[in-house]
């Protein structure tokens, strides 16, 4: 096989200096690959990956601010992902989110070369299959599409609830802890996340985004609203079979009949 005409563009994401140095050193000995950025934390990674749209990301799991899975949830699908971590317990989740490989620290050159071979194989497979359907751009998905919601779900342990929601606006990432959420509101293809008087828009359906929230605290009170029950000031009968939830800050949200049943069930 001929070598690729264009070198693979890689981004290294790891919060430990020596770990980045090692990867860079190993990669400098590999033909057909260039490191275009090194990031020391998740925020930086989301920003740089957005700007550079690399072919390949080496991603640590445990990092400050955003962990590896959260970074993956926030970036556009496209780059092949190779996780690099000292923890073997995330391997299964990594493959659920279609990581190409999972390197366990410490690893050697041979193991890295193997991972690169897998990346190239997957790219080759993806580009041939992308030929047929349509205009296969540079950012054609190389893997079956997987939604950010699915990534978030895979990254969570069973029985564990979402502790924070992540929203990317431009190159900025907002982290909204679950206990500061007031309510979620469906708006066409987006969900508005209301928290402390501010709101952020996140692409996705209300069901998707509220899926992992603690069901003892967040209730779907209406087709378009999921409410943090701790924010309810009072409930008022508005018309037959329809009520209004008045929040502590005075805002009013409609409560459907089914929503009222769920709410009553919870507050029992």
């Amino acid at each position, binding site marked *: 096989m001929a070598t690729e005409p264009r070198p693979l563009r890689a981004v290294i994401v790891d*919060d430990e*200096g*020596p770990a980045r140095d090692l990867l860079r050193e190993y990669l400098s000995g590999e033909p057909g690959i260039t490191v275009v950025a090194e990031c020391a934390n998740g925020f930086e990674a989301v920003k740089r990956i957005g700007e550079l749209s690399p072919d390949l990301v080496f991603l640590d799991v445990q990092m400050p601010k955003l962990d590896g899975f959260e970074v993956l949830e926030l970036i556009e699908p496209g780059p092949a992902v190779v996780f690099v971590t000292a923890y073997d317990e995330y391997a299964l989740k990594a493959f659920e989110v279609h990581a190409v490989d999972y390197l366990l620290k410490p690893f050697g050159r041979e193991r890295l070369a193997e991972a690169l071979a897998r990346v190239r194989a997957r790219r080759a497979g993806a580009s041939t299959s992308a030929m047929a359907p349509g205009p296969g751009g540079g950012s054609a998905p190389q893997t079956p599409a997987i939604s950010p919601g699915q990534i978030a779900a895979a990254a969570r342990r069973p029985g564990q609830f979402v502790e924070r929601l992540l929203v990317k606006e431009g190159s900025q990432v907002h982290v909204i802890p679950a206990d500061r959420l007031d309510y979620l509101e469906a708006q066409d293809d987006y969900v508005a996340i209301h928290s402390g008087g501010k709101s952020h828009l996140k692409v996705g359906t209300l069901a998707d985004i509220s899926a992992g929230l603690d069901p003892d605290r967040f209730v779907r009170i209406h087709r378009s609203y999921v409410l943090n029950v701790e924010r309810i000031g009072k409930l008022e009968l508005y018309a037959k079979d329809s009520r209004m939830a008045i929040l502590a800050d005075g805002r009013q949200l409609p409560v459907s009949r089914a929503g009222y049943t769920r709410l009553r069930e919870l507050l029992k």
Partner: protein
Amino acid sequence: MHPIFSSRLRFALYLGGWFTLAPLLAGLLVLLRPRPFADAIAFAGPLTLFYASACLSAWWVCRAHPLGGPKPVHTLLTVFSAAVQASAVWVAAGAVWGAILAAGLGVDPGRATRLQDLIPLALAGVPLYLLSVMAHYIILTFESARAAERRVFESQVTAREAELRALRAQLNPHFLFNSLNSISALAAPDPEAARRMCQLLGDFLRHSLSLGGRERVTLGEELALADRYLAIEQVRFGARLGVDKRADDGALSCLVPPLLLQPLVENAVKHGVADRVEGGTIRIEAHRRGDALVVEVENPRDPDAPPRRGQGLGLENVRARLDALDRRQTRVDVDRSPDRFRVTLTLPAREGEEGRDGH
């Protein structure tokens, strides 16, 4: 459950004691007023059995008023009044039983004579009840001694378990994997640093194994181990990890369980440095406050960081070990603010017997 019924032996002894009493009482009655022995037994036997059950009530009296309680006079009065009441009930039962027997056998010696038969009951009632009280006190003392023994044993087991957990936590594999990765990273560009790191790691492992095998170590040794650990982590985290350590001489020679601080220092690095973009400074401070040794481990924290799984495990372990050491004289205080986390350990300041500080 009543202690007499909880053991077959006790029940047999108790019943046996009362069964020997019945013929004695019958004999006494025959002496007082000649009659067939069988008649005397017919009177005394059931009554003895009745009193045997009445005297079981002594247990509740004993339990409500344990020996060595704060009010001995009150206890004495209560016991006596219980004895008087019990024997009064017995005498009354005797009167009724005497009347029933008289009616049933058809030989009534007369009301006055029957009342005479009650005199031995009235005389023996109080001392018998007191005897039962004594027996119950003995059982209670015996049982509480056994419970104390069991508690000591249980706390020893807990302490052992905590030690084992501490040792297992000690050989934190991820710490090893990350350190090995750092060594691998340093090997090509800076072989000298890689060697230094190997040495640090070897030193740390050797010391943690040797400290872990001992019953007590000085705080000085414990802090020296923390130094090695932090030096290794400093290679990984670079300028992100700062250390501010202060300990007065009096504190350094105090004895502590081995590897007590290690989980706290590990947590501090994890939450105060690894989880923060800008890293942070870990503060370790130890001093003597009177008879107490006070050790503080503090780290900054990211207010937005989600509560990580496994958090609190190290702290639980430290708490369990101090509890096992001395529940009353040790304390673990946790001061958690949005951007700071501090654990304060307070334990009795005891110095090494061989006067380790003299060396």
